[in-house]
């Protein structure tokens, strides 16, 4: 982008396809011991440019600290480094900083820009995404553990397909889901509608762009409407990449953090699956024995229970909305007189609120009792499901046979655990039917009462529980339904031998026990990730089968002009591993992602290694060898040092993708230690420092600046991991949450963790961070804009966060005591990583004497010396 105008382009720079060429095996020139310096010095010598000297130790240490941990140096550490005269002092310091857990936090924050991570969905309503953060934690752990770059890549695309990766393989998939998601376009508009199709197309587009820009530095998204104008990417390539993600959506994905529990659950699931399949085999035998008549009755019953078109508005009984699930609610039918009871049938509700649909409000735990006493002092238990959760039956009626001789005038459903609605809890049941042996419903039209009820007629009323109306099944045929069910039951009694019935019953008991055991295991953790989604309402996903949606090439990118269907593949022009996508027919969808991951993270994929080497270079040198890290194509920047980039890319690969090793290689170079000072001669030849003749002065980014203020004020909360902190107050959560930053008090200790743990809202971005050029979580940000606007000056002078930080900073230095001058000296050392000059100290001491220490600390936080790292 920022073409070097004064230096002639090198031969390598003139090749527009340079980035797709295989990595060149390059040997550094022999003019310097360090390979980075060897390449740079050779070029500088050729151009006749004399580089700047090395910086002093204090400045170097501040540089290293911000680059590797995103935090300012502690004065005592800095002092130790300065006085360490051993030849490997720098290498030791780098090792220590790489071992500091803050390193992973810094790297994760840089990576989150690239992944465009956020804690809300964005788009309309911008609802919260409460389970995004496990992906952020995975990043921190991965960077701290120095996970090999190929593994790091593979897990983020197909971690679920790499069994040995354990829970991390699931958390890493947060990468695919990190970007914005159109809630309305998915949750309110089905895939059958054009707008629904567009929303899903754009969703895949985001996944494709994220993966290829991040790992390949290739802007394939430009080929959505036509072949890429500049890079060797065809429109078909683009849609083939979409096909890789055709089965997945963004949604919460359960997993177990504890690998042992992960295994236990897998085993428990396997037992249940085995019993379900055995039960299926017996069912087939049963079906054969029941013969054509049984088949006819079964089909007839299924037909009668089909949901009727449209929705009966009389949904059922709905308890009051409760803040906790563990609240007891009940609803009770008065049959008018004491009756012998054969069975009780419960029907679930259907309501689209919060996209819940079928089974809306169906309680998780309950029991049904009958008695002649309306208060149920002595009662007969018909079913007791109060110790484990019952899976939501949706619209499927649940019939509970009563024990022999069960009799009573009152039948009560007591709910002991409510259903989750949306951060709150309710019980709702459409109908409770009380049947005699012939299938007659005693409860029909009888009066009912309840512990609580919302009476929102005609939809919700306690009387609806006996009104004979529920969603699904034509009410007019209810009697026929019950009669058919009774016939089927008696047919079963005659046709199925007692021995088989016994086996079925034993198996069903085993299955119930296995399901109970499975449910007794702790609830899983959840990460918002790329996943096969099994949903309801408009947002159905492709689950449980995970069969990929057919992907067609779209003429001009128009969803209404589909052309031929395409199959998953990589970009054809990059043919380093053409066989990876030879997938068997009927392959699992994850095979596609795994193939793509292997195709990308391949030793012979030159772009992959160049892109990452360039990113790491950029993180440390302030500008990339290629200044457009997400675009190493023709529209991107041309590298001035292609040989160096190739050397570093190959080196990273040959080091097993060790990022720690690459950090250390770069940071031990002399080039990294060059002072950010001017040299008029050199400036004339290379004003943009394309050849790295001086160190680049770096402006602290929003997170580093905020973290530096917290650290300097002595109030940084170093707690790692877990849900993000919120520096806002949410109002109107029920519709479109309003994220009100004004209402949060920054003096509170609740928001003093590092910025990487901040809850990131997409629509209403944190104004203070935004004005400091924080990355926009809706964009794939490979490098941030850097501005100096008056609004930024106002924020740093007047924002309450800064004012509180200055006050706390003053309290810290005041506590350490001494004269005003001594305290100012201490403050400057803490803030700038070096002692203040006599002039600086004099200026600030005079000001502090007149206006107090907090006001002086506010000035320090606003200085260029604080905002920039030399």
């Amino acid at each position, binding site marked *: 982008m*920022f*073409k070097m105008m004064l230096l002639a382009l090198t031969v390598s720079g003139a090749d527009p396809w340079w980035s797709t060429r295989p990595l060149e095996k390059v040997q550094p020139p022999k003019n310097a011991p360090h390979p980075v310096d060897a390449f740079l010095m050779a070029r500088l010598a050729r151009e006749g440019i004399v580089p700047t000297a090395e910086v002093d130790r204090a400045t170097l240490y501040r540089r290293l600290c911000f680059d590797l941990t995103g935090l300012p140096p502690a004065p005592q550490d800095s002092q130790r480094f300065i006085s360490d005269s051993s030849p490997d002092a720098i290498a030791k310091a780098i090792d220590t900083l790489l071992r500091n857990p803050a390193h992973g936090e810094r790297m994760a924050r840089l990576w989150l820009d690239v992944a465009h991570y956020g804690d809300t969905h964005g*788009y*309309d309503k911008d609802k919260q995404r409460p389970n995004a953060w496990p992906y952020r934690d995975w990043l921190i752990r991965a960077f701290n553990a120095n996970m090999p770059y190929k593994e790091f890549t593979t897990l983020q695309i197909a971690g679920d397909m790499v069994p040995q990766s354990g829970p991390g393989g699931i958390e890493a998939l947060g990468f695919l889901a990190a970007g*914005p998601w159109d809630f*309305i*376009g998915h949750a309110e*508009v089905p895939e059958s509608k054009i707008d629904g199709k*567009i929303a899903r197309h*754009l969703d895949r587009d985001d996944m494709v*762009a994220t993966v290829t*820009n991040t790992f390949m530095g*290739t802007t394939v998204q*430009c080929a959505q409407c036509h072949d890429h104008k500049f890079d060797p990417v065809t429109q078909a390539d683009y849609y083939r990449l979409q096909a890789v993600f055709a089965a997945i959506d963004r949604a919460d994905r359960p997993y177990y953090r504890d690998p042992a529990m992960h295994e236990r659950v897998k085993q428990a699931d396997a037992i249940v699956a085995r019993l379900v399949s055995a039960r299926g085999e017996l069912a087939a035998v049963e079906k054969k024995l029941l013969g054509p008549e049984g088949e006819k009755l079964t089909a007839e019953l299924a037909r009668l229970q089909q949901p009727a078109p449209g929705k009966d508005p009389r949904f059922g009984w709905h308890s009051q909305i409760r803040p906790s699930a563990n609240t007891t609610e009940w609803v009770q039918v008065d049959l008018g007189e004491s009756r012998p009871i054969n069975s009780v049938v419960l029907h679930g509700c259907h309501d689209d609120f919060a996209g819940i649909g079928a089974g809306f409000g169906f309680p998780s735990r309950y029991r049904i009792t009958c008695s002649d006493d309306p208060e149920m002092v002595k009662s007969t238990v018909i079913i007791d499901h109060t110790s484990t959760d019952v899976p939501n039956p949706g619209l499927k009626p649940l019939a509970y046979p009563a024990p022999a001789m069960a009799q009573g005038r009152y039948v009560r459903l007591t709910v002991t655990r409510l259903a989750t609605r949306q951060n709150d809890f309710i019980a709702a049941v459409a109908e409770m039917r009380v049947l005699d042996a012939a299938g007659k419903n005693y409860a029909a039209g009888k009066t009912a009462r309840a512990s609580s009820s919302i009476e929102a007629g005609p939809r919700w009323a306690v009387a609806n529980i006996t009104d004979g109306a529920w969603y699904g099944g034509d009410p007019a045929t209810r009697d026929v339904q019950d009669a058919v069910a009774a016939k089927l039951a008696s047919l079963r009694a005659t046709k199925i031998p007692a021995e088989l019935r016994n086996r079925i019953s034993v198996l069903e008991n085993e299955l119930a026990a296995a399901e109970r055991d499975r449910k007794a295991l702790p609830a899983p953790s959840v990460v918002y990730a790329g996943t096969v989604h099994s949903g309801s309402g408009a947002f159905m996903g492709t689950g449980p089968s995970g069969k990929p949606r057919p992907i067609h090439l779209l003429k001009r990118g128009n969803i209404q002009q589909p052309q031929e269907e395409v199959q998953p593949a990589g970009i054809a022009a990059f043919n380093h591993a053409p066989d990876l996508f030879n997938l068997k027919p009927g392959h699992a969808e994850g095979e596609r992602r795994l193939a793509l991951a292997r195709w990308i993270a391949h030793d012979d994929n030159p772009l992959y290694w160049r892109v990452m080497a360039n990113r790491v270079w950029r993180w440390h040198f302030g*500008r990339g060898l290629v200044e457009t890290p997400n*675009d190493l194509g023709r*529209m991107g920047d041309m590298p001035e040092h292609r040989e160096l980039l190739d050397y570093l890319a190959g080196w990273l690969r040959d080091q097993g993708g060790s990022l720690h090793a690459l950090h250390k290689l770069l940071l031990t170079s002399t080039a990294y230690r060059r002072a*950010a*000072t*001017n040299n008029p001669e050199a*400036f004339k030849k290379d*004003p*943009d420092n394309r050849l790295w003749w001086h160190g*680049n*002065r*770096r402006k602290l980014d929003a997170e580093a600046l905020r973290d530096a203020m917290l650290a300097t004020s002595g109030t940084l909360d170093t707690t790692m991991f877990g849900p993000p902190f919120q520096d806002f107050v949410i109002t*109107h959560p029920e*519709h*479109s949450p309003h994220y009100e930053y004004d209402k949060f008090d*920054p003096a509170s200790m609740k928001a003093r963790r590092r910025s990487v743990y901040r809850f990131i809202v997409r629509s209403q971005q944190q104004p*203070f961070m935004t004005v400091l050029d924080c990355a*926009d979580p*809706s*964009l794939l940000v490979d490098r941030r*804009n*850097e*501005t*100096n*606007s*008056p*609004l*930024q*000056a*106002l*924020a740093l*002078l*007047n*924002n*309450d966060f800064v*004012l*509180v930080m200055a*006050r706390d900073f003053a309290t810290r230095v005041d506590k350490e005591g001494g004269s005003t001058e001594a305290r100012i000296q201490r403050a400057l050392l803490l803030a700038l990583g070096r002692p203040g000059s006599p002039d600086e100290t004099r*200026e600030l001491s005079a000001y502090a004497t*007149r*206006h107090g220490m*907090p*006001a002086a600390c506010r000035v320090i936080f606003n200085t*260029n*010396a604080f*905002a920039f790292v030399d």
Partner: protein
Amino acid sequence: MTFTRRDMLERSGQGFGAMALAALLADDARADKALLPHHAPKATRVVQLFMAGGASQVDLFDYKPELIKRDGQPSDFGEKVEAFQNGLGPWLRPQWEFKPYGQCGKMLGEPVAPLGAVADDIAFIHNMAGKTGVHSQATYLQATGFQNPGFPGMGAWISYGLGSINRNLPAFVVLPDHRGFASNGPKNWDSAFLPGQHQGTILKPGAPRPIEDLFPGNHGSYLTGTADPDGRDTLARLNRMHSSGRSGDDRLEARIASYELAARMQLAAPEALDLSRETKEVLRLYGLDHGKSSFDRDINPLEETDAMGRKCLVARRLLERGVRFVQIWSGNDNGFPRRNWDSHEDIRRDHGPLARGMANAIAGLLIDLKRTGLLDETIVMWTTEFGRMPSSQGGKGRDHNPHGFTTWLAGGGIKGGITHGPSDAFGFRSADKGRPTLVYDVHATILHLLGIDHTRLTVRAGGADRRLTDVHGHVIEDILA
């Protein structure tokens, strides 16, 4: 990080008070921007009025007698139509009477009758079409030219292209609905990949800090007496000591300058927002002479007039002081009770008071701009994310209609008193079905009037040379004066 000088200047934006910009720009490699304007401009400023939620064309501006005739009959669009909430009930007549206004005889619905006084200044476009009936994407499309997040708002592009007239105020100012943001919130006026200073700056007239952090927050009670100005002097001296040994890095100077500009903004912004300096006559123009300080709980025309009137009057004061682009929003997110134009349930209930308040205020603005001579160089644009169906939803409401809606323009370089691009007999979509007017055309026209060729204002981002009009857009010659 280092940049080219041009780049650095760009990124430091308004931070370059007295520097000799022109001399520094002369050797700029990025000719696309250095050559601005591309031709002689007709206008220098823009007011964009955005009705959030989807304002009904057929009840306000686009008179359809056929709907009156067929009111209550089953609707038939002659093609398969997908509506957002399947609201394809019978045809529903305009909910108000229409009467002709001005010499042009433009038919206007009763709630927007106040605009009759300026009908001869307005060019209506009735065959606007969007791409989607989803609020979020449709709002993005009209605000940024793209239907997904990540693109700069029109005001950001214009700020980027033309810069500021008055460096003491932001070039692009946004006045959101006082009840909250519309769909997508601040993303609609985002700078996206453009440098941050081109983002719309939210202005809250009447608030103690009308611009975020304009003055010290509540925790600044320790800043007594002259602590604030003295602090800035101290800061300037410290920064000069710092930069004296660090030549060759213009960012250090730029940051020093940004603090000087901040101080000037502290004076300029409150002055620009001070409506007490306006005369009674002017206040009356905007419907602000009612003398009330509280309003009914239910939505009502007086309160709507007051809210919109204040924003419009502030807009005039900002334009006068050299703000390039003012964006005014009517309507917050699409929740309940309706305080937006998304009238699925009842057009009369919501559109009535909203439209009357809007029309009172905007008529005042146009008259005032004319009175002060500013209208000649100010483009006033009225729009919404989509229109509403000519069929009914639930009897009294209307569903979304991305196929047809109305946008109108007035002021600098616009031919008034005309109607361009008719809709069909029902106001469902463009009469010439294959050739609706698109947002790209409106954007291209506005840029054209500002002296910008919309195909030549580009920025490299995400692998492409991005522009406001994507790869589309034709200047609408018909509506040019």
